[in-house]
């Protein structure tokens, strides 16, 4: 009972079961990350230039993501859709300048680690790859190099104080 543990004792059934359980939990964690991660997709209908080619904004479009409620887009519209998981289907009904209606249904994949992306409708309709019509979301201020909310505003942002750290008991609970 109090003998030394041999290597054989160590690699017994229990060891393998534990290993399996730990692996299972890690797999579950990875799965949950994929499954539960929420992405905000900004569906954007404006003229865009990709690789030197210009794609003109759609005159009118009706878009629904994953079979949800459809919403209408006119040029320069941007609406957001929040989705979980990476793979999604998008259903687009649009009209060109001649009022010809087209219908497209396609799948797109949101990059795993992006929480906010911009999906360009004109590029999608033009049949580009999803890695091209989906781009990282960069806030306008940052794009323009304006420091909104930074600088003085950031300095004023609550930095935790002593009181916060050791708590006042009067807070609700």
């Amino acid at each position: 009972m109090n003998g030394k543990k041999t290597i054989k004792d160590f690699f017994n059934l229990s060891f393998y079961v534990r290993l399996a359980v730990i692996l299972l939990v890690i797999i579950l964690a990875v799965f949950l990350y994929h499954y539960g991660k929420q992405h905000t997709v900004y569906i954007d209908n404006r003229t865009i230039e990709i690789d030197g080619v210009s794609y003109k904004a759609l005159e009118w479009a009706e878009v629904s993501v994953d079979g949800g409620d459809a919403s209408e887009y006119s040029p320069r519209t941007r609406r957001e859709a929040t989705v979980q998981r990476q793979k999604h289907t998008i259903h687009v009904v649009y009209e060109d300048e001649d009022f010809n209606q087209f219908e497209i249904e396609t799948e797109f994949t949101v990059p795993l680690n992006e929480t906010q992306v911009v999906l360009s409708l004109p590029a999608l309709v033009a049949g580009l790859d999803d890695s091209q019509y989906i781009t990282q979301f960069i806030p306008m201020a940052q794009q323009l190099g304006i420091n909104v909310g930074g600088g003085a505003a950031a300095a004023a942002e609550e930095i935790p104080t002593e009181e916060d750290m050791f708590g006042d008991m009067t807070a609700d609970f």
Partner: protein
Amino acid sequence: MQSVSKEYNGNPVLKDVNFTLKEGEVLGLVGENGAGKSTLMNILFGMDVIRQTGGYGGRILIDGKEVKFASPLDALKAGIGMVHQEFSLLPGFTAAENILLNREPENKSVISLVFGQRANTIDRKTLQKKAIDAITKLGVSLDPDMLVSEMPVGHKQFTEISREISKSSIRLLVLDEPTAVLSEKEAEMLLKAIKNLSAQGISVIFITHRLQEILDVCNKVIVMRDGRIINELDAAKTSIQEMAKLMVGREVASSSREKEERKLSDSIIMSIRNLWVDMPGETVKNVNLDVHKGEFLGIGGLAGQGKIGIPNGIMGLFPSGGSVTLNGKNIPLGDTRACLDSSMAFVSEDRRGVGLLLDESLEWNIAFPAMQIQNKFLKKYLGGLVKWRDQGAIESVTKKYIQQLQIKCTSSKQKAKELSGGNQQKICLAKAFALEPKLLFVSEPTRGIDVGAKALVLQALKQYNRELGVTIVMVSSELEELRQCCDRIAIVTDGAISGILPASTPSEEFGILMVGKSMKEAK
């Protein structure tokens, strides 16, 4: 079991001990405190203490093969079980749970593969069954569902023994004074149980101070004294008196002491009635005792019988009850201050814990209680509003006692912890003397100090008693010591006084008192 023999050389505690034990035999082991019984059993049981103090000599043979136990666990595996004097039971568990503690039968489940063996649930039914098996084997009536905390002492003892015999390999059971805490009825049941066990082929080593019990159940008796086996007797052919004599030993003729018979004063300084004290390991149950003025009274008895509890209880160091009067005045029990105020003093057996301020100087140690309690060594200024220590008086008093008691120290400013045990004991005495009490309790004054210091301490006490007429009550486990300086000696057995005899009485008679027989019964 064919033979257990043991030789032990070179250590003064045990010398050349040999004995054999047959299967199913009941061996009685008797001897005074310090005779080496516990050491012998510790060796047999492979206790850590033995190894840490340098192992032992000689050999132990089981079934003709030599064994050396590295730990109690090894001894357990070899089939040796021991029931100690103190219970090792969990109060909140039932008898059954205690019997199978850490050996509970389990239901296997898948969960244990992940969380380890201990995630198995306990199989209550089998547990119950196994416990009942053990109890039946012992042959006593014991409710397996009873909580230990609600049990009478005897049942606790049975639980403990059941636990040992529930181990499947058990072959030898060591019982260390199992009947000390039992009532007569319970003891009878236990003795019957021992006979049961022996009939089933389990050998028993039975340590006890009650010699009658040895006669009742044992096949063989070993009497030990001073680390030797004095005699091996056939239980059927011996008598209590023979055993008692062998146990106490020291032929009376050997000590040539001047016998001074003093006339005791008739006035009683202290009278104790129905005293009980809850001191762990030294429970006092019902003590009635009168102390005469100016006498030197000894309180003797075997360890664990309650003699140390008496002064500790009166001085309020442990919960106690009953009535104690000093010079006709009632003393409230449990109030140390009141005791000290009424001119009693106590030299504790626990000199490091209770007796001394180890980090303080000698003079501070000696003078502190007197200053605290009796406002001695204080100079008063402003009509008593400001009290100042009288350093001069303290120093002179300390010097006086250092000289008187021959305390070996560099100066009176030395710290108490730097002194040897014997000298610390002397400081304790000096401290009590400085209080100038009318009645002084001294508990085990010679415990753990060498022979020379012993004589000095005893001499000092005797002198103090004879010359100043202070009444002294001394508690000691060493009968010889008591006989040297006391006028009368009271023997405590099982929490009560079993008899008071003049110090000149032969030691056999004390021996018989110690093992709990009154004189009449023994004859």
